[in-house]
């Protein structure tokens, strides 16, 4: 029973990491930018959704999630439009754009501290508190809903990328921007879509994490790093890998916190990360690609 609980908790937090990692992977694939403000998008989405909840306390959970996604999506597009696009048009080196994302992250953290204060803010209960019984195992409904939302969101994203014209064009741009442009893809518009989707994923992750623990102005920092690590774990630039990486990272972290040491739970993830980078440079996805 205890094992099942841990497994559920690991999966749920893994879904959160997967969503953040997806955003990282999408932006890296399309632009090469390591988007350090990704965690801050998550934080801002979480905060905005919480503020909406304060205004409308009876909002259903799904709509709260949507609120967070819209807020982060809009902010991500604003970042792209106001900062990253001018930088790209001036053709500054990638290193400068990456440093600018750090600047953006500092800006967002401090703006949030001024707007929402520096105290951790607790989410009201979004879900009923009585445990669900699944196959005789009692699991907290929060965890179930988070996993459900996570899986649905990732499924929708995959459908969008694989089945719609816009999604396919986005994939093409990510593979080779120049060729895609020659074929008539609108690069500028695809960048906006990429950032919008990455922002929405981060916003959803923010609401999920906020409802599990709490939200505060510095939450995005650690979660952003973990998302980045998860994306690398799966092999940067592969979306399926990012999802897998997030879930694996969530499970490893949860189990090692209990069975190894809670003080070193982050360290175990990092050791694993370095080992994977050294011995399996294309990430977890490389495992079966090599065989195929």
């Amino acid at each position: 029973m205890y094992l099942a609980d841990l497994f559920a908790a690991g999966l749920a937090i893994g879904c959160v990491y997967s969503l953040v990692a997806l955003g990282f992977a999408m932006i890296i694939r399309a632009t090469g930018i390591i988007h350090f403000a990704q965690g801050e998008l998550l934080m801002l989405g979480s905060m905005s959704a919480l503020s909406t909840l304060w205004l409308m306390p009876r909002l259903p959970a799904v709509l709260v999630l949507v609120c967070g996604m819209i807020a982060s999506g809009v902010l991500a597009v604003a970042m792209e439009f106001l900062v990253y696009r001018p930088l790209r048009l001036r053709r500054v080196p990638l290193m400068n754009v990456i440093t600018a994302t750090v600047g953006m992250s500092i800006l967002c953290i401090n703006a949030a501290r001024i707007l929402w204060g520096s105290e951790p803010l607790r989410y009201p209960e979004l879900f009923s508190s009585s445990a669900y019984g699944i196959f005789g195992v009692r699991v907290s409904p929060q965890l179930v809903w988070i996993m459900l939302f996570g899986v649905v969101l990732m499924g929708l994203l995959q459908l969008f990328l694989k089945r719609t014209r816009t999604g396919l064009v986005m994939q093409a741009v990510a593979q080779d921007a120049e060729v895609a442009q020659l074929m008539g893809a609108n690069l500028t518009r695809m960048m906006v879509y990429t950032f919008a989707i990455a922002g929405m994923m981060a916003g959803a992750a923010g609401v999920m994490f906020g409802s599990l623990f709490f939200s505060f102005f510095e939450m995005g920092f650690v979660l952003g790093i973990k998302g980045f690590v998860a994306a690398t774990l799966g092999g940067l630039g592969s979306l399926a890998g990012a999802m897998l990486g997030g879930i694996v990272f969530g499970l490893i972290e949860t189990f090692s916190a209990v069975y190894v040491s809670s003080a070193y739970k982050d360290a175990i993830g990092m050791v694993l990360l370095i080992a994977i980078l050294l011995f399996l440079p294309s990430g977890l996805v490389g495992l079966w690609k090599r065989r195929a």
Partner: protein
Amino acid sequence: MTRIVTAAILAALFALPLFGPHPFILHMLSLVAISATVALGLQLLLGFSGQLSIGQAAFYGIGAYASGLLSTRLGLPFPAAFAAAGLAAALASLLMVPITRLTGAYLAVATLGFSILVYLLLKNEEWLTGGSFGLMGIPRPSLFGHVLTQPGHAYLLCVSVAALVYFSLLRLERSRFGRAINAIRQNEDAARACGVQVTLLKSQCFVIAAFVAGLAGSLYAHQVRYLAPTDFTFWKSVEILIMVVIGGMGSLFGAVLGAAVVVLLPEVLREVGDYRMLVFGAILMAVMLFGETGIAGFLGQCLKPFSKR
């Protein structure tokens, strides 16, 4: 021309304590010199050899704690602790040398992982490092049996080390080694085809940068005389990275300028209170518009009309 300017700046820096400025100003300038030292090391790694490390704070922290522990627990004199700090950081970097095979974002995330690892060790191994309470009572630096109690003397020490590192790296940049790593940065495959030992040189850059960061860490430990794990988080690594990029990639003088800006700007912005980091973030993004050359390149362009060709 450049030589005269460099000599003038150095002379001004060394003469400064004679005018008896406020001790706080001397302290801040010492911190600038220390940060400049770390930034110079990262400039070699990132600006010259093109390897992005966002974990320099780990080596900085290892150096600081090594020096602090050796002088408090074992009573080692400052010069010995200083050298040991550099060596400790360099040894730790040897552990990480295999990762120089990685490129771009992968190298970045591996160094990031290492820096988080070191931070957790500093925080959790209380028997050694004092944990979150920090390491207290680190003695002031002493040279030849003479303790540097005056802020002016400590300042001179920090500036001397920074200057020494600056000129060593300048020599290195213009040597065969420097040309080889420059070739690696521009095109790794082409460099390898020309017979440059890419992996070896990249690892050497990594170790040198860590060694320099360790030395700076030792200076920091004896300057501030209190170490806490929170001084060496991921943010510190990012700060060092900002110094290099804001100052101008590939320019040693730029790294020094960048260090001055990053250390002093928040102090100058203290007037705007709560909004200071907000303004800092905005300025950082604005400076990035200048392109690869950063502040150093911007200054160079301003001075161009005055220098004879």
